């Protein structure tokens, strides 16, 4: 395959960025999208140019490091991560636009790499449980009803890649935050911090400069792990419940 790539290039956080056009040839349809970018970078290095900086790690779709908005879609046209997107989703001769995640809370560091540490701070605000450390507890000591376990697991699938923020017209982190809140809030292990967790995580989310939810639904469409839009509804319910409970204390 021969492709025309229009890639966002930006030297550093303070520099002005712009789209640059590159041609790549000899792309196999079995290559992943990131392997295709590796080919581009080899080509750039051989020509004495700076390679395109992009985030990646496991390349197995489980770590949440890769990002990229491809032709206007976070993680590209398939419902998966960019590393698991294959070139068979494109046609010979296609022009592909590649841009970084866009949100005030995710500033561009260089080219396609953005700073997602705002997510870490949301987790620090309440995305944990208080558990005694030491020897592993007996697995059956705390029974969890099957529907709750399924609900928790569905939300635990979030890999924190930030596609929800990138896709949201308001740069909101509601889907990410709701995945974490719902995952821990429904389990007995997460019960002691159930109220403070949702209040603190939502407050941190606002503090980081993410936008609010207008229920456009683009986050859930972009999510490679299929976290549903209704997770946000569940978090709103948790937040209202926690607000009432804490006011009574």
């Amino acid at each position, binding site marked *: 395959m021969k492709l025309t790539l229009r890639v966002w290039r930006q030297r550093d956080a303070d520099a002005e960025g712009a789209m640059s056009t590159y041609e790549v040839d000899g792309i196999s349809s079995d290559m992943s999208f990131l392997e295709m970018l590796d080919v581009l970078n080899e080509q750039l290095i051989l020509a004495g140019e700076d390679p395109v900086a992009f985030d990646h790690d496991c390349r197995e779709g489980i770590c949440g490091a890769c990002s990229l908005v491809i032709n206007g879609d976070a993680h590209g046209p398939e419902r998966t991560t960019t590393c698991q997107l294959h070139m068979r989703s494109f046609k010979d001769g296609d022009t592909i636009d590649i841009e970084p995640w866009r949100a005030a809370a995710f500033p561009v560091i260089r080219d396609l790499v953005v700073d997602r540490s705002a997510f870490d701070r949301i987790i620090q605000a309440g995305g944990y449980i208080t558990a005694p450390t030491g020897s592993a507890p007996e697995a059956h000591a705390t029974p969890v009803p099957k529907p709750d376990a399924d609900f928790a697991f569905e939300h635990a699938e979030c890999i924190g890649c930030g596609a929800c923020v990138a896709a949201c017209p308001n740069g909101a982190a509601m889907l990410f935050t709701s995945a974490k809140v719902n995952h821990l809030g429904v389990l007995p292990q997460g019960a002691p911090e159930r109220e403070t967790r949702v209040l603190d995580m939502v407050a941190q989310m606002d503090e980081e400069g993410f936008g609010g939810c207008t229920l456009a639904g683009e986050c859930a469409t972009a999510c490679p792990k299929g976290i549903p839009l209704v997770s946000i509804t*569940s978090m709103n319910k948790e937040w209202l419940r926690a607000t009432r409970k804490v006011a009574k204390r």
Partner: protein
Amino acid sequence: MARTVWDSSVGKKTVMAVSGLIMLLYLVVHMIGNLKIFFGAGEFNHYAHWLRTIGEPFMHYEWTLWLIRVVLVVAVVAHAVSAYQLSRRDIRARPSKYVHKKPRATYATRTMRWGGIILGLFIVWHILDLTTGTVHSGGFQPGHPYQNVVDTFSTWYGDVIYIVAMLALGLHVRHGFWSAAQTLGAGSRSRDRALKAVANVLALLLTAGFIAVPVGVMTGVVS
């Protein structure tokens, strides 16, 4: 608690949801009241007069009406201020646009802000036209709402402003009702289709019910 709600983006959305639902309830009542125009000047004017005497003798003349007006003004202001503040936050949160644009959200979702502004301006015109009579065409007659309504809808601009605003209302309610349910935590996977259906039915009935009046005047059914 009030502080927590007002300072949070989730809390402000709650304010929008509650104030929106109050206004929506009022609109349903208002729309049903308007339809009495099809039963003649006597019934319509009598209904309009009754609005001022609700609750008598416990409530004095017009007290209930003023109470409703105060609740509505509070709802409109709370809704608009929250919308303004949340929109500013949203726009700040997404300062740079994508080069490759791809709008996916529904038309109703994308027009919530402009639709809201259109509705806000419409409410001002509507009150100045048919409540105070300040901008009314052809001599406003207090106590004769039937004639005033016919006057307004006998002008082309009266019809255009009203019909455009009611179409904007339908779109606003379509996304707004469903959104309010999500914000208040009332939505769920099993209830989603029902909530969307109720939103669509409400939007359609309100738009059709309100537009029936100018159409009635234009076609001569009401004169």
